């Protein structure tokens, strides 16, 4: 009350608004930062912050690189940089499709496993709780590249099912390697979201006769979805950006093809424009995800 007396103008404005409505407000910067930090701590993930300026800067930088290389190439009477990039683009795009496929599969399976692992972390049975906690911590704190190498060399090259022998391609084993950290991170996202729901919700459900599993399904998890979506999308963006790691273990994705193209062309001035084009491709793919994540975060901050 005393505060609103101090701001007579603000009070006048407030009076026009029904008390029971929640309106979106622009939070002061410090509060926004504090929330961001709290979110990151809760989800245990750094949150991506990209905006339109980043996109413009990236495109400008790429044009600059390509332009410089183009000018040098023309001066030396070599084939145009742009036409070389365009020539290799179909192959690199095919590689990029594999990056996307790997990320989708790893995200899908990782999310499914992570959901169970996260729920196991809040189990009432101590062995399940401790076991899932340990598993989560192990894979969450292992470098992704190490997990990738581990899976490439530990998983079998071929399996026999009912007398039929199937080869397991490199990319599939790499996908498994990326699924593990996704699983662990989703597990933490789920645990964090469930634990962020006030205790009163559990009590109210219990007093209405809901069993524990039913409470989770009908009351807790539906409320968690909103809270989990932004960090989950954030995790996906990190995952797609980590898929070029697979090139190190010999998976033929966008990064490998770009390197292959450079080797074939044997031209030093292509180095920066080609990798620049690859960077741009990733940026164009990830940027809308980061934007959507931010929009969702902002929306859910106001309504919950």
């Amino acid at each position, binding site marked *: 009350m005393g505060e609103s007396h101090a701001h007579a103008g603000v009070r006048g404005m407030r009076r026009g608004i029904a*008390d*029971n*409505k*929640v309106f979106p407000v622009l939070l002061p910067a410090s509060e926004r930062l504090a929330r961001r930090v709290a979110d990151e701590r809760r989800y245990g993930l750094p949150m991506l912050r990209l905006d339109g300026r980043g996109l413009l800067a990236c495109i400008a930088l790429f044009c600059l690189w390509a332009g410089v290389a183009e000018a040098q190439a023309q001066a030396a009477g070599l084939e145009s940089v742009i036409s070389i990039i365009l020539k290799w683009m179909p192959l690199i795009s095919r590689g990029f499709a594999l990056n996307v496929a790997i990320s989708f599969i790893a995200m899908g399976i990782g999310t499914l496993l992570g959901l169970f692992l996260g729920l196991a972390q809040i189990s009432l049975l101590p062995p399940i709780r401790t076991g899932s906690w340990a598993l989560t911590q192990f894979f969450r704190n292992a470098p992704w590249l190490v997990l990738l190498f581990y899976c490439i060399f530990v998983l079998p090259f071929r399996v026999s099912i009912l007398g039929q022998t199937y080869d397991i391609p490199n990319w599939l084993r790499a996908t498994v390697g990326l699924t593990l950290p996704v699983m662990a991170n989703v597990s933490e996202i789920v645990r964090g979201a469930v634990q962020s729901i*006030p205790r*009163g*919700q559990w*009590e*109210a*459900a*219990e*007093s*209405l*006769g*809901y*069993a524990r599993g*039913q409470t989770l399904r*009908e*009351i807790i998890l*539906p*409320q968690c979805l909103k809270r989990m979506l932004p960090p989950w999308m954030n995790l996906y963006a990190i995952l797609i950006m980590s898929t070029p790691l697979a090139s190190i273990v010999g998976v033929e994705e966008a990064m490998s093809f770009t390197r292959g193209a450079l080797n074939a062309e044997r031209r030093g001035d292509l180095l920066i424009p080609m990798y620049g084009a690859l960077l741009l491709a990733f940026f164009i793919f990830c940027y809308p995800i980061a934007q959507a994540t931010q929009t969702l975060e902002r929306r859910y901050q106001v*309504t*919950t």
Partner: protein
Amino acid sequence: MTTPLIRIENLRKSFGANEVLKGVSLEVAKGEAICIIGPSGSGKSTILRCINALVPFDQGSIQVGDMDVGAAKLDKIALRRRVGMVFQQYNLFPHRTALQNVMMAPVQVLKQDKAEVEARARALMKKVRLEDKESAYPGELSGGQQQRVAIARSLCMQPDVMLFDEVTAALDPETVKEVLITIRELAEEGMTCLLVTHEMHFARDVADHIYFTDAGVIVEHSEPVEFFSAPKQERTRAFLERFL
């Protein structure tokens, strides 16, 4: 006198080393409104939570109708169908509309017919004077409105007794009244009510019996007129002086 709907005998409950209930006994007859008052931390809320089996108790016994709440094989769903509870913080489910909040448990827990439950829920929304807020989400309602939805939600389970745990403590003075009116109407219609409250005037007007608790024991138990005009215990007098 008929057998009481709730009978608590020598109830004891500790949280760690802290014994919050040190042998509490009380009875609630059908159709009665009972108020439990007392200073904060005297174990009032814990009594309600024990009745509803939200927290287990250590010693003593609680009977609700013919059910033994302390029994190892307690049918909790049956108990909670009989005993409704309303909380200080309303605890509505924010992802569901007011009407859905009221309908959820009978449909999902008791597996009752949805159309029947809906008719009942609409009647209850009308009863708590919120028939125009059926499709509002809890976030769009005031505290008092949310609390009335919470009361309707509890009533929709068709309980034999309602427990109210300081239901007006989180409300602003204006909306306290609308919630108290709702509860008073319930009591007058013959719903058995057990209330933990700090609203002394309300307790005096509505209660059939008043229990005064302090430090985990029942210090005094009498009818409202006697309780407020001629308290027997020094501790009760000291408490009431601060309130009235």
